[in-house]
């Protein structure tokens, strides 16, 4: 586990507390990039515990966060120049919002850690600042009943913490609102792209091998020409669903994610058709539209999990129709494409 951020130690009534840096090092940046590409993402953790920023005392604020290193880094950098306590909960390396949804960032964990670290001895006040998105797992009145501490919900984004403190622990409506700007969506695209990596190798390979089939038997030359096109079409469908649809998300004028993905997929298919990559033969063109459409639609639908505004009821409603259609489209498309090998 990475401990390079620990710069000292503080002797307190609650024992020795590690002091942490608020600077981001080159190694942090590199680790963040790797994590965004899903490399070692689940192992990018901080040890559960209590930490000190600067030289906090009895009056200092306590900030709570998850033990996912990216969450922890956001918080410690936002506390630059302040004196504060940081309580890291054990969320199994998951960020605050997702962990709160699962309950690991929750009332029980928070109450236990408040008691275990003797926070009532460490500070004279009875306030603990929890990120607003933690509220999905934390019940403020229950924590109060368990520990005597008042949960104060801080802003959604750590970068607003200083403004939050200077206005007397009050967050503006802006600070309380979750957004999903293009910058945030772009950050999520690499993980989406890496998500189906095995299929991305396996499926085009199968298409490549099958491309050589014809009514005289098998032709390697044909596998190279048609198979190459097939691989390109499949990669286009993948990028359409995993990257382009998330990128254009609010500007595709329909609400269903699967429908958004279908539109982008068919846009890609039209471009590929124009440049002669699909086929010159109508049944094969239709088959490709069905395959590209279903792949792009399915992958776009999976982006509901990464988005910040989809509800369970909504996704269930969307999937009830979309999932069977995606399967039917893919099956007919695949069958059609196979049959056209022999015509």
């Amino acid at each position, binding site marked *: 586990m990475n401990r390079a951020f620990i710069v000292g130690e503080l002797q307190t009534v609650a024992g020795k507390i590690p002091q942490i840096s608020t600077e981001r090092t080159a190694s942090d940046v590199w680790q963040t990039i790797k994590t965004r590409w899903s490399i070692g993402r*689940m192992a990018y953790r901080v040890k559960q515990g209590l930490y000190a920023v600067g030289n906090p005392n009895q009056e200092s604020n306590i900030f709570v966060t998850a033990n996912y290193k990216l969450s922890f880094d956001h918080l410690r950098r936002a506390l630059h120049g302040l004196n504060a306590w940081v309580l890291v909960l054990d969320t199994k390396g998951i960020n605050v919002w997702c962990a709160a949804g699962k309950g690991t960032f929750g009332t029980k964990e928070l109450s236990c850690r408040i008691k275990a670290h003797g926070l009532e001895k460490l500070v004279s006040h009875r306030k603990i600042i929890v990120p607003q998105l933690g509220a999905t797992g934390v019940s403020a009145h229950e924590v109060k009943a368990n520990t005597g501490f008042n949960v104060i919900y801080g802003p*959604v984004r750590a970068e607003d913490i200083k403004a939050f403190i200077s206005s007397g622990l009050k967050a503006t409506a802006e600070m309380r609102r979750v957004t999903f700007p293009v910058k945030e969506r772009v950050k999520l695209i690499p993980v989406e792209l890496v998500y189906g990596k095995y299929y991305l190798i396996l499926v085009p390979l199968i298409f490549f091998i099958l491309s050589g089939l014809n009514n005289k038997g098998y032709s390697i030359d044909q596998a190279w020409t048609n198979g190459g096109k097939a691989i390109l079409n499949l990669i286009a469908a993948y990028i359409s669903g995993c990257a382009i649809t998330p990128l254009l998300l609010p500007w595709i*004028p329909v*609400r269903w994610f699967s429908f958004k993905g279908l539109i982008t997929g068919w846009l890609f298919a039209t471009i590929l058709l124009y440049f002669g990559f699909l086929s010159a033969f109508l049944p094969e063109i239709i088959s490709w539209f069905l395959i590209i459409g279903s792949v792009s639609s399915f992958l776009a639908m999976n982006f509901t*999990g990464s988005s910040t505004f989809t509800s369970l009821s909504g996704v269930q409603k969307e999937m009830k129709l979309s999932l069977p259609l995606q399967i039917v489209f893919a099956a007919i498309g695949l069958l059609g494409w196979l049959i056209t090998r022999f015509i």
Partner: protein
Amino acid sequence: MAYWVGLLQDLFKNMSGLIYLKNVVTLKLDAQKCNGCMMCTIVCPHEVFAISDRKAFINKIDHCMECGACQKNCPEEAISVKSGVGCAAGIINGLLRGTEPSCDCSGDKAGCC
């Protein structure tokens, strides 16, 4: 140039259709029980609630993502919502295992005491 950049930014801001499906969410509020503590307006990430006459009311129901924060933090238990992950992969996970929808983000079990 600055004019066109401004125009484009405005256009895209207005087009930010980050609202999901209409008339699907399970969120309910019993205004009778509300004590006006405003916790729901604090924890909601999508400004679903507003306060009028010291009572909460649901202002933008279609913005609700069923995260459950309001229900969890309502001391009067005036709010009910079937909360869960709005995630297709999680729902498929649930279908395959025959469980409730759940994301597969962490393998190991939680619990400190």
